[in-house]
């Protein structure tokens, strides 16, 4: 084989198949379980389910060789999963261990308005070292999520998001498509340079502000808060320079995401969806990032059964769906075509790691009952040291 043929062969191999025989092993399946959100266990206080969350700065590894400073709930990206029953009384005690302000917005939940987590609208921000208690009844049922609503552009892509699943014992989706296994996939996009620069700038700014607050000098103009719009307009007319005129932070560039994650990980560390022939699985999709995703499943159609957590009366079939920022969608996949099938963003600029393809939110639907021999490769590939389809292929 000459060099050109060799390159051609390896390129075809890695382009055609990204998933391996290894995926069928019990070790791979066990490791895969750790790539889904971990449910947060409540403590019962009477009939109230009480949860404890903290926020801290955490070094998160997206893929081996790349980690960045994140803002994380309970030192996880994404944060732990809330899983309660419809109608449960929920109490969340939030502890802010960072030197930044935060809140939690319960995205899609019908909480009392003072629990909605919008700073200066429903509550004051939870300041460094402070605790805040959120209390509400879990409504409506379905797939929802939570995220920080302070400095949302920065804090969400810094890792402050997690799934909030409200179950219903009379779930119409379960009745229509009986399933035993379900998965949560939380999509996000991160401009790691923006995150780093902004976090540093905001940390510096908050040190300064905390120093002032300790000495009793809360200045509304410095904090850029005004009681009324008229007060703000008058301040500008009197020479006040709003933050959008005089940048007080890092460079005023909008983020350009360079990492695209599913459950906080990029390919090849993304989670896979395991299924058996004849089995039906439910996948809860959450877009907690700022970019749209066009999710395409190879070799299958799937049923879109819920939109924003709300069951769709007439589910419809598709193989590519748009998942906009802030949306959740539940899909049902039927195990009808045994194999290993990729499930990825068809805007393939998001199937990249730091600008290099492949990577990003690429993952696979893996049939557990796929015979190992079907993953074997030709004699030629075996001579290259690849007896089976490789687990990781990063150089297409």
């Amino acid at each position, binding site marked *: 084989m000459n060099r050109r043929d060799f390159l051609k062969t390896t390129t075809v191999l890695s382009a055609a198949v990204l998933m391996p025989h290894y995926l069928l092993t019990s070790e791979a399946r066990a490791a895969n379980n750790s790539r889904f959100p971990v449910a947060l266990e409540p403590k019962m206080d009477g009939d109230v389910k009480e949860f404890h969350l903290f926020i801290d*700065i955490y*070094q998160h590894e997206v893929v081996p060789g790349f980690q960045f*400073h994140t803002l994380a709930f309970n030192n996880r990206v994404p944060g732990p999963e809330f899983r309660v029953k419809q109608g449960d009384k929920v109490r969340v005690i939030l502890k802010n261990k960072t030197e930044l302000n935060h809140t939690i917005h319960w995205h899609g939940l019908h909480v009392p308005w003072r629990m909605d987590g919008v700073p200066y609208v429903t509550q004051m921000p939870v300041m460094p070292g402070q605790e805040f208690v959120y209390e509400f009844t879990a409504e409506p049922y379905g797939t929802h999520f939570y995220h920080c609503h302070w400095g949302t552009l920065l804090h969400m892509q810094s890792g402050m998001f997690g799934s909030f699943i409200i179950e219903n014992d009379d779930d119409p989706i379960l009745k229509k498509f009986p399933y035993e296994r379900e998965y949560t996939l939380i999509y996000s996009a991160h401009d790691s340079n923006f995150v780093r620069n902004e976090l*540093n700038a905001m*940390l510096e700014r908050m*040190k300064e*502000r905390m*120093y002032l607050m300790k000495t009793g000098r809360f200045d509304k103009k410095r904090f850029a808060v005004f009681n009324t719009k008229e007060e703000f307009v008058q301040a500008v007319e009197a020479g006040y320079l709003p933050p959008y005129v*005089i940048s*007080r932070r890092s460079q005023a560039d909008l983020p350009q995401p360079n990492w695209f994650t599913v459950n906080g990980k990029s390919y090849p560390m993304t989670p896979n969806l395991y299924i058996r022939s004849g089995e039906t699985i439910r996948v809860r999709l959450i877009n907690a990032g700022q970019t749209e995703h066009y999710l395409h499943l190879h070799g299958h159609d799937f049923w879109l059964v819920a939109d924003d957590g709300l069951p769709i009366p007439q589910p419809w079939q598709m193989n590519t769906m748009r998942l906009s920022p802030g949306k959740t969608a539940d899909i049902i996949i039927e195990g009808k075509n045994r194999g290993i099938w990729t499930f990825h963003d068809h805007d393939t600029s998001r199937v990249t790691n730091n600008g290099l393809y492949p990577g990003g939110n690429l993952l696979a639907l893996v049939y557990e009952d796929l015979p190992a021999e079907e993953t074997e490769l030709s004699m030629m590939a075996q001579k290259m040291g690849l007896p089976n389809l490789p687990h990781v292929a990063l150089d297409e």
Partner: protein
Amino acid sequence: MRSFKKHALSIIGTLGLWMTAGAQVNPEIQLGARGVVSFNTDILVHQTTTAVNDFSDTGLLTGFRQKLYNTFRGQLVIGFQFPDAESDLGQLFFHQTFIQLEDQSNIIKLGRSRVRSAMIEFPTLRDDDALEFTDVLNPFSSGENTEDHQYGNVLEYARIFNQRVWIRLHGEHFTRTPIPPETAEKDFSLNAIGFSIQYRVPQTQLWNRPILQQIGIGFNNFLTDRPGYTRRWDRALKNVTASMVLNLKPDPIHFIDLRAQAIYNEGFSEIKQVIDFFTMTRARALAAFGSLRYLMRKLERPALQVALSAGYKIFPDLVQKSDQFQIVGNVFYRLGENFDAVAQLQFRQFNGDLRTLYGESETRIQFGFVYSIDQSWNNQFDDRESLLNLEHGYIP
């Protein structure tokens, strides 16, 4: 012919590396620019002169940084500035052309750059406004320009302990003014060595720190020739520098700091009269310089700075009592992002032998503008002294 072959091979080798480097993660590109333009009025005892445009110290810096294959980063910096009009350096002077390698605790620097002739910087309009007090002077220079004392070919290693203690070992080739009939410098060998140790609180932790911001001591030894002495140590011109920066009021709105530095030049005991720059740099001398600075910050940005600095230098071994005195007062008022209007008043007085060289006194009044930017593109990694890296774990 042999020489041609050798050169051809090295060119091919270089091209080969260059061609391979065509595929790369984008380097970080940095741009720094500083424009200093002032209208000057100089009042001597018997004469008053003006300069319509003094744009010395205006300069441009470009930098390129890249992660290396280990935990180090590599950087290339190229920069030039406009020297004083009456200097012998021409229109442009390339003051920075160096390569630097660094990791969290080590910095290696090679090339032309700022020499370690001063421990701290002072709030004067131009870096060389009080050079005789603020910098160890280059004894190899004729004194025709100030750049000879500030820039040289450096070889430096710095080791940082606990993010705050800096130990530097450095060797330099200070510019040696050609002695007629020579017209150009031919010897570029090492002509100075030194080391310093300093405790320094990172600027990003301004609001954390107590009063002490910096304290340090440094040693500069010039490998001079000294007629009548054979031992290297005896022939060397030895200088000791001590410095301290105190934050008298580390307040985010009304900030006050005090800077002080003393330079002791052991000199040569045989120098009893200063008749030129050569003897001035070799005579025993003690120089002290201090600044009191008030900085008002409005909306988290500098708005007004007022500084008063003063220096005194004495040459105790001279037959005729000789000393010099200087005060510098200035006001910077911010007109917009990074754009300042400035007014500065300097008064210098000379006594003894120095009066013969420089005259009795000089008053300089300056009005001008300063515009400086510091921009970067393709950010890849954080700075050593960012808050994230300092307080939340260093990421290489």
